[in-house]
Each structure stands twice: as structure tokens, then as C-alpha cells.
């Protein structure tokens, strides 16, 4: 299989869907590559720095039969457009009684770890998850990135694609042809029997690395990647934890009201999973601070492998 980067996988997804469907259009302040060359300036729009109106334009054009992809670039910049997401995009279909579809895709990068400090190092997916009415994907590999983004573009609902900055240069095998990954299906990235690690985005690979190390100590880790945040594949997560009896959830967003909190709650409120839990659920998340600039502090703010490893040891020790 071809090995390509996460970034290239995303670019391929967009280009293939644009070839497939002339109603797919792009709006952003900038693009990777040169999509204008292939698709022309009427389908590929460089926008002013006006995220609010551009976000609403994507929605409006979607309601009129197009399939816009709006790229906010960084999730940070989407906050000036939050009204159009929370008050319009997420509610428009339901509150209008389903009389139209709104197939718009919003894309942005997330995450820290690259020395860009507080405003440019955010992972606030849970704020979007809380708003009923959006679908949300968060891939961890080039293959999932391509397959999920293609599914997002074909979906007839507003979908938000969160794309982790630190993964952009990561490479991995991506199947040839029309590779789709369904929205709403988690994947067990490694099977194991002692502890389930649920990792998000960058932390899937980190969890796999930790699992590899711990295997040498004789600890068998199962790594589960939700891949889609809404709708969340609770069944797959619960099945894993029912098997292992222990769970560590890892992400670079701060813990409070995070995706990790939601996963913890989904596990602890399911009677069968609750009964199978042999140790407290464990979140390994960012410290509750804006991500600091200095490398010494940024490292301390974000989860590291040693934090994941420590959490695994802890849940093993705490087991009843």
C-alpha cells in the first residue's frame, strides 16, 4: 500500500470528492497545494478573513444544493464564527422540520505541541460535541483521515473535521481507490486483555507506543480509537472495557467537560460495563491551563507517554 502523509491524505480526499461531484466547492483564506489549477477560481474561493460570514455562507450554499467545504485553518479562528455553528448550522435542519439538507463540511486543525502558545494550541472538540446537530470526526492516521473526510464531504449534514496539527507530517499506508471510512465507527487499533487505552488523534500512536513498551512488562493493552466523536461508537468502547475491566482515556484537551469526560461517563453509566469495571476510569488529559509557550511548560501541560504509562500502572494497582 502507498505510504502518504496525513496532510496529503486530506488533500487527496478533497480533490477526489471535487472530481466526483461538481457541487463540492472550497472556501478558505489559504489552501495546501494549488486546487485552483485543477478546479478553477469559481469552485475554489480565497476568502477575506471573515470566518463568521464564510461559515454561514457554507451553510447557506449547502441549503441551496451545493456541498461547500469551509476550512477555518485553525480551530482557534472558528470562534469568531461560533454563532453560525452553534445557533445556525447545528440547528437549522431540525428547527426547520427537515425541509432541507445542509451538506457542509467544516475543517480545522487542532492541538498543541508545536510552540505556538495559548491561542494557537487548542483542542476544544467537546464544545462542538455538546451542541446537538453536528457530526464530528477526529482521525489519527492518514488512512482514516482520507476515508473520514471523504465520508464527511458526502454526508448530507454539517460535519466538522478536526485535524491534528502534530499528525500532519505523520505517514502511513492508505488504500488505493475510493477509500471511505464510515462515520460513527470506532476502531480497535491493537487488541489486549488487561487495560483499554482510548486515545484521540495524536494520542492513538502514543498509546500504541506505550502498549508496545508495556507488552515487554507483560501488560496487555487494548488501544481503541473512536475516530468519530459524534455519533460516538459507545458499543465498541464499552465492549473493550467489558473485556479488560480497566480504562485510561488520553487526549490533549483539558479534562473538564472534554471528550474524555464523555467517554468516561458513557462507560460508567452503562450497567454492564459498570459491573465489569475493576478500577476507576482514568483520564490523562492536558493540564487545565492555556497551552504555555516555553517548551519546558508546554511539555508539562500536555500528556506524555510517561503519564499514560503511569496511569496504566495506577489502574492496575487500584483494581478490585
Amino acid at each position, binding site marked *: 500500500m502507498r505510504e502518504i502523509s496525513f496532510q496529503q491524505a486530506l488533500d487527496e480526499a478533497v480533490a477526489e470528492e471535487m472530481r466526483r461531484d461538481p457541487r463540492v*466547492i472550497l472556501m478558505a483564506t489559504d489552501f495546501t497545494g494549488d486546487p485552483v489549477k485543477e478546479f478553477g477560481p*469559481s*469552485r475554489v*474561493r480565497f*476568502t*477575506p478573513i*471573515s470566518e*463568521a*460570514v*464564510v*461559515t*454561514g*455562507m*457554507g*451553510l*447557506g*450554499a*449547502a*441549503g*441551496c*444544493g*451545493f456541498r*461547500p467545504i469551509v476550512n477555518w485553518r485553525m480551530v482557534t479562528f472558528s470562534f469568531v464564527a461560533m*454563532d*453560525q455553528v452553534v*445557533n*445556525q448550522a447545528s440547528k*437549522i*435542519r*431540525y*428547527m*426547520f*422540520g*427537515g*425541509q*432541507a*439538507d*445542509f*451538506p457542509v463540511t467544516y475543517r480545522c486543525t487542532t492541538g498543541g505541541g508545536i510552540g505556538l502558545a495559548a491561542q494557537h494550541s487548542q483542542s476544544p472538540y467537546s464544545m462542538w460535541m455538546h451542541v*446537538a*446537530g453536528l*457530526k464530528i470526526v477526529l482521525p489519527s492516521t492518514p488512512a482514516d483521515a482520507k476515508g473520514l473526510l471523504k465520508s464527511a464531504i458526502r*454526508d*448530507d*449534514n454539517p460535519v466538522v473535521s478536526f485535524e491534528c496539527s502534530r499528525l500532519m507530517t505523520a505517514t502511513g499506508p492508505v488504500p488505493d481507490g475510493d477509500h471511505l471510512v464510515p462515520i460513527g465507527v470506532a476502531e480497535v487499533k491493537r487488541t489486549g486483555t488487561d487495560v483499554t487505552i482510548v486515545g484521540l488523534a495524536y494520542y492513538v500512536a502514543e498509546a500504541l507506543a506505550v502498549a508496545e513498551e508495556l507488552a515487554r512488562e507483560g501488560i496487555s493493552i487494548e488501544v481503541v480509537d473512536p475516530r468519530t466523536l459524534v455519533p460516538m461508537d459507545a458499543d465498541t468502547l464499552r465492549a473493550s472495557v467489558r473485556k479488560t475491566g480497566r480504562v485510561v482515556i488520553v487526549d490533549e484537551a483539558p479534562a473538564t467537560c472534554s471528550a474524555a469526560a464523555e467517554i468516561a461517563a458513557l462507560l460508567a453509566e452503562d450497567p454492564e460495563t459498570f459491573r465489569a469495571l475493576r478500577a476507576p476510569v482514568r483520564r490523562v488529559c492536558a493540564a487545565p491551563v492555556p497551552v504555555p509557550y516555553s517548551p519546558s511548560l508546554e511539555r508539562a501541560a500536555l500528556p506524555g507517554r510517561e503519564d499514560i504509562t503511569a496511569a496504566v500502572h495506577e489502574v492496575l494497582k487500584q483494581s478490585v
Partner: protein
Amino acid sequence: MALSTTGMAQMLRTMILIREFDERAIRLRVAGKIYGAVHPYVGQEAVAVGVCANLTRSDRVTSTHRGHGHCIAKGADVRRMMAELFGRVDGYCKGKGGSMHIADFAVGMLGANGIVGGGLPIACGAALAAQLEGKGDVTVCFFGDGAAAEGEFHEALNITSAWKLPIVFVCENNQYAANNTVAVQHPGVDIAAHAGAYHMPGVIVDGNDVLAVHAATEEAVARARRGDGPSLLECKTYRWHFHAMRNTPPPDTRPPEEIASWKARDPIARFERDVRERGVLSAPEIRAIRERVSADLDEAVAFAEASPFPDAKDLLVDMYA
């Protein structure tokens, strides 16, 4: 294109229908038959009607919290509007939306909007769609003087002018945003003054004169259809009633003389005079229109009351395509 006789008669009928619809909505809300908030459009009828008379069915509009007038003027069915206010399954939104979220995509009415300024970006998207479709359709975006203080107003004017999108921005300057005068909202009184810096025409028109509104819109729509880009139309008008009501109409805080002076410029009375003087309609014909409107609204209320409430088991329906 001069207005035809039937065109003018149709416009008068629509203005009366809008007024009577909202007068009923107030009574129905007081009676507890409908819920939530009512924002009456009474007094501003010439704007919605004068503008929408220039539009075809495939042209699109976006509206505001004060949206009943735009909805009727764009051709929505008052029976399904009324059913929506009653929260019934035969309403436009199956009872899920209510007054602030009525939409009828089939006639190009892309929705009322409870967020001040929230409809502007959506309208720009519809205009982008029209430009890409290339069929010469236009989009009209209604918004209030208050909305012109929101950043989305500026962003909308800027991007649509840069992209020459086929859109007409219609500011209904009714002198107030809730209880605040325009002077509290803006350093100047003319919203249209912004147009120049965006390289688009800015036109101020008497929003209580339906023919003036019609003429100004005609030019703006023609410009948009030609591909020459957006225009900003400011219609000076006034709402006769309170900003919004829940259980009971709130007391009016505006100067009584001011209200009276604007009521003396009633857009419907004025247009009735116009059409009589032009010989388009006689007084008895106008009376007949009024009776017909009244009967239509009786029927709309009956239609709404006959429609069932949504079943709780359908709560999750319509969430996703």
C-alpha cells in the same frame, strides 16, 4: 418594468394579509393559543411587499425574528404558517420551529432567524449558490437597523461586493432595536451610508411607500441579475407595536407623538389611496380584499387548530438527513 394592475392589487392584498396575520397572532398569543414570542411586523408591510414583488419563486430571501411579513410576501401559505405558530405537525417546521424559525424552502424563504444579524451570512451563501448556478437568481437579505451594529453585517457587505454576488441587502430601519433608538446603536442615522466604502450603491427609500420600495428594489435586483453585485437598500419605517411579547403585550416606551406621527403615514392607507386614485381598485374592491383576507385567516386558524400536536415519539426525527 411598470407594475401591472393585477400586480398592484396583489401587493395591496399581501400588505393587508401581513397586517391582519400579525394582529391575529397578537390576539392568539394573548389567548394562549400560541406560544413563545411574537414580534409583529405591523407598520412595515410596504417593505416586505415592495421588495418581494420584484422576486420570482426561485429567488431567495432570508429573514429575521420579525419574519412573518417576509414569509407571506415571498409566497408562503398562511395556513402552514399559522399551524407552525400553533406548534402543530402541519406547520412549516412540523411545530419544531415556531414563529422565530419559520422557513419555506419551496418558495425560496430560507428562514426567519432568532439571532440578530444571523441571517446575513446565510443569505450570502444563497447568493453564492445563485452565482455558481448562473441562472440569474438573486437573494434578498432582510435585517433591522439594530443588526447593522453586528460584525456579520460588515463581513457580508465586504465579501459579497468583493465577489460581486447577486444579493440585495434590505435594512428595515424602524428607528429602534428593542427599546433603543438608532442613536444608541449608531453614530449616524443612515445605515445606507456604509455602502460607498464597500463600492456598492446605497439607497435610502421611504419604507412606508410600497411603490418607492418597489422601484428602488427593481434597480438593485436588476443590478444583481446583471452580475454587477450587491446593493444596500435602507427603508425608513416604523413598527406600530411593541418589539416583542410573551404572555401580554408590554407597555410602549416610545413617545406617543412619535407613534402617532408614524401611524399617520400608514403604508396600507397610503397605498389604498394610491390604487384608488390610479383607478386600479375601487373602494368596494378593496373592501372585498379585506373580507377575503379575513376569511383566509379564519381558514388558516381553523387549519392550524385541526392539525395535531407532534407526537413525543417523533422527538428525534429530522435531526439528521
